[in-house]
């Protein structure tokens, strides 16, 4: 099979069209660069009625929203989930890792939770606080201008709270709390837990002519046809095209390697076209990797050459190392005060209107880093699973469990909307031994060697999970709710979810000033090849107790402008 080369040379080849790749596309195309955007999945536009799931009813599907073909339910807008057919990954014996991939234009930004939190000053310099992990080579003050511009460009609602390490931004106004959220606020206050309006990239107010304002269907995970939530396609890539950007999209194209020359500099990428299963090459002055932390690590590790025998950017043997995901734990409760209530529309925005940022001082605790709490509940649209074991709730109110007929119909209505769910999302410590590497024995259906994960939690993650459960129970108690299920004990890692399940994987190409202990410099530029950049969460030196997307985009914006500057100065 002959590899087909393209004669055209691009100014930049961007790999991946999610948060990082989308932002790079926007900044570089707006600056007039000729761009190739390479995405492993097909085209997707939230506006396209053919693929839309927003505002569909459960009964429009024979399986009523069940997760048979999509792990988070069949209306969730992610093509691909923990499994992608023909593209496996493996784990080292005795370890566990879950890896979510969305194969579509915009990637995982089409279905993500839209929780948009800035990292704070401590988050960039956390080693200086507790001696663990590594400091970032940059500070909050260096990233702040990019967060500020990001807020205005994309739109994020929230409120000015002036809390330590939870920087405020240029916020749109938040929606009012729902009823179960008012009970949460009350319980949290009693339990000494801070509760504030959530911070999410959903337009509660107009920001420009290209995007609509939220119409409160509560379905951001289905991707918004009005472009009122942040998805990379609708908010970055399409506007860049509309702006006259010179962008060639290579869709259904899976990058195998970054190609390099005798000097070790990148010359472009080699990819498999999934439609004809043939290999092609693109030439570019700069290669920008935004394939996701693990996919970018995979491409680099597979890019072996005489000049880069250990994989591109991997002279330090650090590519794939320091992989870490947020920690996660959750708990549900029954809220008797919410029984028998009159139904009304409380869809609201897609997700929570209220949340709790980390509120304690770790110096007084037996674990080093914090977590935040996300709140769920309310009158949702029934989908597959609705009504499951509903009569069991009678146990809490002295009613008859079980039964059938009119009694069952009554039970279903009485308990509808009477539940609340809390989810803790915390910071793991990045460790040298937690990694992804190339599996020596396995290739995917395109012949590309796949990743093997080797990841274990430590007590730095287990102990906060234990604390989460205690906090949930205190809040439930304080709000008069009845906690469901047993407190997960030590043998269940205190309810700590498996690594990868929170889908915040970061750290595989971490940035640093020392080329021996990091993969990129502080501009996300490979130490080993100065025309290769990483714009996904791979560059995170540490994850905060915050979701990673807002920081991915702020850094991608910063790196993209650095690329423009370096090209102008002819440094790369």
């Amino acid at each position: 099979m002959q590899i087909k080369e393209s004669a055209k040379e691009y100014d930049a080849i961007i790999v991946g069209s999610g948060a990082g790749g989308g932002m790079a596309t926007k900044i570089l195309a707006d600056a007039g660069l000729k761009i190739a955007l390479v995405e492993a999945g097909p085209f997707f536009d939230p506006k396209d009625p053919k693929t839309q799931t927003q505002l569909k009813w459960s009964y429009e599907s024979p399986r009523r929203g069940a997760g048979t073909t999509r792990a988070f339910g069949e209306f969730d807008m992610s093509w691909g989930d923990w499994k992608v057919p023909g593209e496996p990954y493996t784990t080292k014996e005795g370890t566990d890792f879950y890896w979510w991939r969305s194969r579509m234009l915009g990637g995982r930004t089409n279905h993500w939770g839209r929780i948009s939190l800035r990292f704070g000053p401590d988050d960039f310099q956390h080693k200086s606080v507790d001696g663990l992990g590594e400091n970032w080579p940059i500070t909050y003050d260096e990233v702040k201008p990019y967060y500020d511009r990001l807020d205005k460009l994309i739109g994020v609602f929230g409120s000015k709270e002036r809390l330590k390490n939870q920087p405020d931004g240029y916020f749109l106004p938040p929606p009012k709390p729902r009823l179960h959220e008012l009970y949460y606020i009350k319980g949290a206050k009693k339990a000494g837990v801070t509760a504030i309006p959530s911070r999410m990239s959903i337009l509660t107010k107009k920001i420009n002519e290209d995007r609509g304002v939220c119409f409160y269907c509560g379905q951001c995970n289905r991707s918004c046809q009005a472009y009122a939530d942040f998805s990379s396609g609708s908010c970055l890539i399409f506007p860049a095209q509309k702006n006259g950007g010179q962008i060639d999209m290579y869709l259904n194209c899976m990058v195998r390697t970054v190609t390099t020359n005798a000097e070790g500099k990148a010359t472009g990428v080699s990819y498999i076209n999934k439609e004809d299963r043939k290999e092609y090459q693109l030439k570019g002055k700069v290669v920008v990797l935004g394939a996701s932390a693990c996919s970018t690590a995979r491409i680099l590790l597979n890019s072996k050459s005489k000049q880069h025998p250990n994989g591109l950017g991997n002279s330090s043997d650090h590519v794939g190392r320091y992989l870490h995901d947020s920690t996660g734990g959750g708990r549900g409760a029954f809220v008797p005060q919410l029984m028998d209530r009159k139904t009304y529309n409380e869809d609201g925005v897609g997700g929570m209107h209220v949340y709790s940022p980390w509120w304690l001082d770790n110096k007084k605790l037996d674990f080093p880093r914090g977590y935040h709490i996300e709140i769920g509940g309310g009158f949702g649209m029934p989908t597959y699973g609705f009504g499951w074991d509903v009569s069991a709730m009678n146990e809490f109110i002295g009613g008859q469990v079980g039964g059938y007929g009119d009694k069952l119909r009554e039970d279903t209505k009485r308990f509808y909307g009477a539940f609340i769910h809390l989810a803790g999302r915390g910071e793991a410590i990045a460790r040298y031994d937690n990694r992804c590497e190339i599996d020596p024995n396995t290739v995917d259906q395109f012949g590309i060697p796949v990743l093997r994960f080797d990841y274990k939690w430590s007590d730095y993650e287990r102990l906060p999970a234990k604390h989460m459960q205690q906090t949930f129970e205190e809040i439930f108690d304080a709000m008069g709710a009845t906690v469901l299920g047993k407190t997960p004990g030590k043998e269940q890692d205190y309810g700590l979810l498996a690594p990868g399940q929170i889908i915040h994987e970061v750290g595989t190409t971490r940035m640093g000033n020392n080329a021996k202990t990091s993969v990129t410099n502080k501009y996300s530029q490979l130490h080993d090849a100065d025309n290769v950049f990483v714009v996904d969460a791979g560059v995170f030196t540490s994850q905060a107790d915050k979701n990673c997307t807002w920081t991915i985009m702020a850094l991608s914006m910063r790196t993209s402008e650095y690329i423009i500057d370096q090209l102008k100065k002819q440094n790369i």
Partner: protein
Amino acid sequence: MNRRESFKTLLVGAVAGATIGTTTACKTDPKETTADNSTNNQSQEYYGRTPSELEHDVKVYAAEFLNEYELGTIAVLCDIILPASSTAGSANDAKVPEFIEFIVKDMPNHQLPMRGGLMWLDGESNRRFNKVFTACTDAEQIQIVDDIAYPDPDNEKPEMAHGRTFFNLMRNLTLTGYYTSKMGIKDLGYDGNYPNVWDGVPAEVLAEHEVDYDPEWIAKCVDQETRNVTAEWDDDGNLIT
């Protein structure tokens, strides 16, 4: 229409579904497909399927698992679990047996418990009344159902344990099928899934609860009157429009 007849209609529906699936797969304009909002819309394209998902649906529709006899028993059980009320139709009216027919093919983990459970039920019915469950009188059916529809914390009837497990599955699938149907959603009172301008919990609902909006909190929240005015901020990040 008696239960057997409604069941026959149901089978025809399932087969027709497969045909519809094949023919709509190549349509490009979703407006051409009939969104009849029936409780089991079988024009798969209408709910945003990828090509491989469409193929999957066609396959599942075309497959057969539960036979006519089994579906007849399911239809009887469905209407015992959710008979018509004064304001809403029964589980059969909401086509719940049709949903169950589909879902056990879509989720093979339900197949053995469903098939085995139905056999258990006939076995029990034969022991008690010397006939299969569907041939029993209403009173006889209820006699068995009453023994398997409730928990047995004191283990008074351990021989009914397997029946209880089966009935639990039937009850769960019936509730899910019913309350995700158009009829069930209306009966439940879910009010949503349409564009609106949400502006907080209705005052009359708040008045019935021990919580209230904190004026300081609400002052930070969106003023829906100005939602269409383009956002501008001062240099300190204060919204000024």
